[in-house]
């Protein structure tokens, strides 16, 4: 049987979500011994990722999976690879234009909107909310913020305190402590990732107020968000799927000459204490 | 010590040297700059551990692995280059490496008491808690000496201890040395000052070019013979004769009402309302004890304390505000400081870089370096001042102390100054080279330079100066002419007695 080499360029492995993505890919690929995967990690450096793509092209891989750090700067190298006839699957973040084979990703803005809607419903349209934002120079942070704000517009939900916790749990805890010191009547914390929500919970617990506040996070990783929901720490976690399994599926169909759709939008799920045992509930 | 040999990077600096030291004697180690004296005693003190030959101590062969091992046998060293930790307090410096401890906790009270007692015996009035670096060089040297005297020394090695001391402090040291000798302690003493050597010596060993020339009882080795051993030729006349001044020569440097704020911040002023004049071709000596303010005067004139000085200053008739050393250099001043390690040289850099640094504006007027000119200038001074070095690319840190001093002098001559401010210019310089420097000073003054000279060596001061100003507490207490100056008169004025000359 013919074997294929797939190059996988991950933009960084500092975030558990991306570690999970690699793990998902690995797990799916394990079922297909004809696939040989090479993983590279760009350490959050755009230019390193660019170099990696160039290296993969030079090494002549059969297919490229790129989870890009940035859209604009990584468009040209990916386009160059694509023009050379190497199929490219773009995972998670978009590139500019259409010089790639297939894009697989979830929509952060949509998830933010869903979270917002869920929150409006849960709080019956009114109450003080704290927003702990992810790194606001990154697109996921910007989108999770924008979607959420869309949904709570013109409701009684008021964001009384917002801070950039840069995806980091200790920072989230720190910021939440400040929020708690200032506002005695916080109803809910919306954090852009689950560790952020967990950090906020730790702060509230230390202040003895964890029972009065709901915590909502995003990502829904099994060992983080879903665990926290199961433990009753989070009121909800919205899955941001890694697309690892879908990427391998797409790769197989491309390599077998049956190109998939140009764009695959991943469905995400909401995990709440009520549905966690059933495996979550798909978002509309 | 027998058959001692030592090389640095393939260059042999000691070859088959021997030294025998008896209890209760003062043994002088003499030799020119770079003869290898400091190297020899560093071997004895366990600092250089790679050498050939053997050392026996009380009849037993020893080979020290580190300074602690030598110290444990009672071998104490006062090094040529100060080895105090400037940031630490006097007390901590005194006990450094030999702290009194109980379960490795410091016994601070005992330490303080012992230190206070020692300082009192030495007649030093120091604040034990002040940092050592805040004291002037001479007092730092005294702290260094006190440090070596703390505890029981069996062998005390003094490498040019008096090079930064005034007469009075040196006397205190000599008295102490005599007491130690009484107790059976053996002393090795290195100095370039002939008066000291013959006052203290029981026996003398002479090194030349890293080789042992001879050892002899002091009373059996006349001064001229010893000098011949050291330099390998006769040296006539200790001080060259100074030509008479041209009468009515114009003033090169005129200072009126000059005050310098005390840089240490202890008093208000280090120099107060001082006036002086240096004429063309004249050497003006500045005498004074520790803290008289004469070093601060030179630094102040040179622009080292911008904003800290008041008064009028004229160089060759032109007003000069002492704003920065660069301005002073441009105006034709040059300052040889008394601490070549801290303020004179950049130890890691080559001789050439050090030598041309102050004159760089002249040597590269357009801002572009002119390597060939620099080389020529460096080569010229290496020859003129007979600096012992492999090449001008050698780092100055690897030169012997005296040769380093010559590099400092060269550096300032290279600026082609009109007025030289010299603070202990012959510090650590050997007798032959001193002679050369004296002759050079005569030469320079003959060419029309003016010199303001600080020196703690009375004979040097008396022999070289055309006029002597004695300072005390930041003021001039006496002005003596060459003819009227006597050591006693100078001392009296230096102690603060206003004397009319």
């Amino acid at each position, binding site marked *: 049987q013919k074997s294929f080499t797939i190059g996988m360029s991950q933009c960084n492995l500092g975030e558990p979500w991306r*570690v999970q993505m690699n793990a998902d890919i690995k797990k799916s690929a394990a079922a297909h011994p004809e696939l040989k995967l090479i993983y590279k990690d760009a350490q959050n450096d755009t230019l390193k990722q660019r170099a990696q793509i160039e290296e993969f092209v030079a090494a002549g891989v059969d297919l490229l999976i790129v989870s890009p750090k940035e859209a604009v700067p990584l468009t040209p190298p990916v386009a160059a690879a694509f023009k050379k006839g190497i199929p490219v699957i773009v995972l998670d973040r978009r590139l500019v234009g259409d010089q790639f084979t297939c894009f697989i990703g979830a929509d952060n803005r949509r998830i933010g909107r869903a979270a917002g809607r869920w929150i409006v419903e849960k709080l019956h349209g009114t109450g003080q909310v704290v927003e702990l934002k992810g790194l606001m120079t990154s697109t996921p942070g910007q989108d999770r913020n924008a979607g959420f704000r869309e949904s709570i517009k013109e409701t009684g939900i008021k964001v009384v305190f917002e801070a950039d916790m840069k995806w980091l749990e200790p920072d989230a805890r720190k910021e939440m402590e400040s*929020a708690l010191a200032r506002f005695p009547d916080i109803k809910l914390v919306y954090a852009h990732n689950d560790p952020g929500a967990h950090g906020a919970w730790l702060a509230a617990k230390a202040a003895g107020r964890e029972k009065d506040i709901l915590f909502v996070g995003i990502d829904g990783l099994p060992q983080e968000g879903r665990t926290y929901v199961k433990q009753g720490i989070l009121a909800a976690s919205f899955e941001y799927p890694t697309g690892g399994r879908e990427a391998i599926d797409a790769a197989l169909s491309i390599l077998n000459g049956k190109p998939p759709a140009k764009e695959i939008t991943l469905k995400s799920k909401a995990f709440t204490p009520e549905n966690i045992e059933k495996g979550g509930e798909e978002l509309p | 010590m027998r058959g001692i040999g030592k090389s640095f990077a393939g260059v042999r600096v000691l070859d088959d040297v021997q030294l025998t030291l008896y209890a209760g004697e003062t043994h002088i180690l003499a030799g020119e700059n770079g003869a290898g004296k400091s190297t020899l005693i560093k071997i004895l003190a366990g600092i250089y551990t790679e050498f050939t030959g053997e050392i026996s101590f009380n009849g037993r062969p020893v080979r020290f692995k580190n300074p602690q091992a030598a110290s444990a046998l009672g071998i104490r060293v006062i090094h040529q280059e100060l080895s105090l930790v400037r940031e630490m307090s006097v007390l901590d410096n005194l006990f450094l490496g030999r*702290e009194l401890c109980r379960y490795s906790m410091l016994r601070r009270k005992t330490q303080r008491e012992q230190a206070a007692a020692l300082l009192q015996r030495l007649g030093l009035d120091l604040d034990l808690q002040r940092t050592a670096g805040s004291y002037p060089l001479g007092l730092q040297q005294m702290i260094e000496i006190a440090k070596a005297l703390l505890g029981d020394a069996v062998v005390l090695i003094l490498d040019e201890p008096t090079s930064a001391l005034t007469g009075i402090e040196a006397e205190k040291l000599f008295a102490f040395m005599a007491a130690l000798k009484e107790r059976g302690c053996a002393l090795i003493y290195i100095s370039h000052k002939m008066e000291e050597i013959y006052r203290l010596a029981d026996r003398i060993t002479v090194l030349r070019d890293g080789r042992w020339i001879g050892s002899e009882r002091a009373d059996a080795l006349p001064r001229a013979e010893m000098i011949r051993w050291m330099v390998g030729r006769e040296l006539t006349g200790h001080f060259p004769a100074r030509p008479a001044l041209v009468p009515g020569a114009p003033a090169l440097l005129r200072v009126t009402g000059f005050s310098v704020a005390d840089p240490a911040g202890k008093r208000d002023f280090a120099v107060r309302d001082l006036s002086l004049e240096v004429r063309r071709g004249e050497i003006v000596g500045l005498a004074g004890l520790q803290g008289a303010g004469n070093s601060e005067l030179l630094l102040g004139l040179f622009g080292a304390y911008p904003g800290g000085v008041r008064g009028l200053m004229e160089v060759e008739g032109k007003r000069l505000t002492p704003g920065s050393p660069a301005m002073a250099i441009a105006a034709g001043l040059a300052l040889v400081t008394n601490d070549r390690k801290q303020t004179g040289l950049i130890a890691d850099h080559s001789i050439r870089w050090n030598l041309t640094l102050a004159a760089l504006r002249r040597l590269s007027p357009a801002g572009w370096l002119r390597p060939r000119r620099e080389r020529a200038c460096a080569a010229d001074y290496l020859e003129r001042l007979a600096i012992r070095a492999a090449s001008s690319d050698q780092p100055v840190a690897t030169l012997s102390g005296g040769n380093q001093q010559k590099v400092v002098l060269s550096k300032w001559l290279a600026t082609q100054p009109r007025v030289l401010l010299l603070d202990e210019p012959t510090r650590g310089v050997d007798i032959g080279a001193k002679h050369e420097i004296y002759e050079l000073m005569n030469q320079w003054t003959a060419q029309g330079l003016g010199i303001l000279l600080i020196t703690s060596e009375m004979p040097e001061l008396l022999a070289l100066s055309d006029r002597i100003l004695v300072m005390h507490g930041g003021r001039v207490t006496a002005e003596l002419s060459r003819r009227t100056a006597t050591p006693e008169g100078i001392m009296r004025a230096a102690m603060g007695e206003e004397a009319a000359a």
Partner: protein
Amino acid sequence: MKRSELMQQGRQWIRSPFARALLALICIAILGVIFNADGAFYKWSTHRDMFRQISVFGILACGLTVVIIAGGIDLSVGSLVGLNAVLFSMLTIHCGWPAAAAIAACLLAGTAAGVSSGGLVAKFRLQPFIATLAMMVFARGLAKWISGGQKVSSAVQQADGAYSYVETPAIFNALNARIWHDNVAVVSVVFLVCLAVTALILARLRWGRYVYAIGGNEEAARLSGVPVKATQLLAYGLCGLFSAVAGLCQAAQELQGDPEAGVSYELTAIAIVVMGGTSLAGGRGGVGLTLLGALTIGYLEKILSINAVGEAARLMLTGTIIVVAVIFQKGAKR
């Protein structure tokens, strides 16, 4: 006479590093009073939480103070926090070691890492900056390697890939708790203990004197019989030990071991040391000042946080205020 002497003393005291550091702290506190965020600055919990937040940095700063006084620097402390947080969590949660054994193992590991850096400096004469930079990179790699890149928490992956949930060991909650009627966080107490230990070492032990001596003038110290290399080894070892302590505190506060924990903590910790007036040139400083430095940085961050200042403005203000605060110190150096 008496009065002028008093004034002279007063003037000297004002110039002392301690007074300067205190002044900087007071200025920051005044800022806090001005921007009190609707009175949040006046709540005790604000100060308590500030002190908790700065504790991990403060513990690192204690070790760094020693290394910096010894004339070195240690950039690896942040990575060691991550490494030890992971190690501690692995040992207690996955391997089920008793707390005491796990703590001992971590302290040992931290010390070993510190001694290794120290060995590179003392024995191979590497520049501290580069030796500890290498250690920083290496320790981060090690943390990722032993944790497999994932956070080590009470969610334990089974052989089949599913997660099972174990109880968080009691030691985590114990370290994460508050004592004295809920008034002081345990990690803050740990910080104070580290501070006291460091102060004792620096002021009272012979070895403390050696630390100052080698930082002030290594050559002179050597000539005076100070065991320079051993002193360096001990200084870096102590710094590693404190990093391990900080790692334990970090893990306890996060209830997990994050291999990314402590990234760039070294910069904050160094800033604390310098804000306290300890000179990076070595030979001068003390840990009492480090406490003031920690409080200054802690309040600065807290005030920016309770006022919900935006990220960009926060960074610009932090930069500016660090400079202003350190300029207060400048009179203290030479």
